[in-house]
């Protein structure tokens, strides 16, 4: 997914002189073609995220469309104030591409785990947050980021994630994608959790529970209209995300559910990372399983909710 994303930046830059790329101290050879063919618009500025985000803002103020890339935790935590004040307050066309959203860097430990990036960015006015599910969805997203007004945070997954999306519903930033109809439980996903929901929905179907899936790659602005349209049909709602359950997709949907005052009330559950710093290593898959962000957990909860 990262390769697709950066390759798209390269392709878009070939046809649009406004596009610039700014990295921190990325891996050897990253976007070599961009650096060689468009050196005037390629910047590798060192391990200095506060400066990089400010510099990107200065460039955007001069009319550039600036794609900034580094590891998610450093792009969201270290320079949070630059993101808020320089990028978002000025509503600039800066695209922040975060590598390793969620627990992708499981072997590297908690300093590298972006467990709250969605939550902290969701609280910033003017920010748009997109977490595609796979490389194909990334390929559909990227051309739209060129002329989309204002800042965007693009959350990258691990890479080589299985392809679970298709283009049957056109991808648009800010729009939810109905992936499966159903009338018992609604599974709301973002990023790679779409795959877990798909597995769970298959399993639930075999036991007679009809699960709808609403995929929300754009977490902010949230497609509330689509959410209510799908929520109306079901008795229960489950959100699934690779992010803390505080303030991310689950938090956003919980806010909608709470204020909707559904009558009769709907059962509701957020599946995501608990409010702790993960203290295990291993792999992304292992950590997600450890924190019960899994198809089997979705099945267990959906089954409880739908039992009469």
């Amino acid at each position, binding site marked *: 997914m990262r390769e697709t994303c950066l390759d798209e930046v390269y392709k878009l830059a070939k046809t649009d002189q406004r596009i610039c790329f700014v990295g921190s101290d990325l891996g050897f050879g990253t976007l070599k073609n961009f650096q060689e063919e468009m050196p005037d618009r390629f910047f590798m500025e060192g391990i*200095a995220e506060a400066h990089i985000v*400010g510099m990107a803002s200065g*460039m955007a103020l001069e009319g550039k469309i600036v794609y900034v890339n580094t590891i998610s935790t450093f792009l969201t935590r270290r320079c949070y104030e630059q993101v808020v*004040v*320089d990028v978002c307050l000025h509503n600039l066309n800066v695209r922040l591409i975060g590598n390793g959203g969620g627990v992708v860097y499981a072997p590297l430990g908690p300093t590298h785990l972006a467990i709250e990036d969605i939550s902290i960015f969701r609280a910033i006015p003017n920010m748009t947050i997109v977490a595609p599910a796979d490389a194909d969805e990334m390929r559909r997203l990227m051309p739209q980021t060129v002329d989309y007004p204002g800042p965007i945070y693009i959350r990258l997954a691990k890479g080589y994630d299985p392809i679970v999306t298709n283009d049957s519903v056109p991808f648009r930033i800010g729009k939810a994608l109905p992936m499966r109809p159903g009338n018992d439980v609604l599974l709301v996903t973002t990023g790679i959790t779409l795959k877990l929901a798909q597995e769970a929905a298959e399993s639930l179907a075999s036991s007679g529970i009809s699960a709808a899936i609403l995929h929300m790659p754009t977490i902010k602005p949230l497609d509330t209209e689509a959410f209510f349209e799908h929520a109306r049909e079901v008795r229960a709602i489950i959100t699934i995300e690779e992010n803390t359950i505080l303030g991310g997709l689950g938090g956003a949907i919980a806010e909608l559910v709470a204020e909707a005052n559904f009558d009769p009330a709907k059962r509701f559950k957020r599946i995501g990372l608990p409010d702790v710093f993960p203290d295990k290593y291993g792999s992304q898959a292992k950590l997600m399983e450890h924190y019960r962000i899994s198809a089997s957990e979705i099945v267990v909860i959906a089954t409880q909710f739908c039992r009469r």
Partner: protein
Amino acid sequence: MTRQDTSNIALDRRSRDIRARIVHVLGHGGRGHLGTSLSLVEILRVLYDTVMHYDPKNPRWPGRDRFILSKGHGCITQYVMLQEKGFFAAEELTKFCKFDGILGGHPDPKVPGIEVSTGSLGHGLPIAVGMAVCAKRDALPHRVFTVLGDGECNEGSVWEAAMSAAKHKLDNLVVLVDYNKLQSYASTYDVLDLEPFADKWRAFGFATEEVDGHDVAALERLLTKLPLREDKPTAIICHTVKGKGVAFAENNLKWHHKSSIKDTDVEQLLAAIED
């Protein structure tokens, strides 16, 4: 010229008039950063009178020199200069920090002539580097000026940006530091010593000069021969006095910020400027 805590420069009529206008704005708002606004006067006066290219009738003119007051808390001085040059009506100055005014306690780009919101320190130089690098790469002749506070140079982002400016050989970038030697709590020497300050900028790759920041002629001499060195960004350490021009506010930490300014304070300040 280090550790110069006083300036013997006598202020001319124009410098006194600008200070009087600053005091009136402070009075209208009933609050504000005075000491830091007064140390800035000659720096901004020379930039706006003699050095920078701009068009008050077309504030976003693409050929303008960019200016970022990175020490945003000194904004009253910039407001006074912008208004005098015709960027907005004088009436706005009377609404400083008021609900329906456009002039707040820190600069905001909704004000004609202001490029970016500053106020949180350490942001101006990275943004200025981004602007200057674009002008360089696009072969545009305009320059980028930014004024930093001395206390602001405690921020690491200033030095991250300084390295980047040198790397990109930004001789279209000019950093002026208002080195009045006082930050909010105490002197810069006591809070977090910047010395050897000019040598730091030199070591970070800047062509660096020091000047009495209240000496209009000296500032003009320096700022009309930019860049100081081809292929290097410029740093000018302006030795200034916090509260300059108001004897009882000079080097007086109590005048860094005032949250309550009364009419009697305004009268005393105006009288002191004429002393």
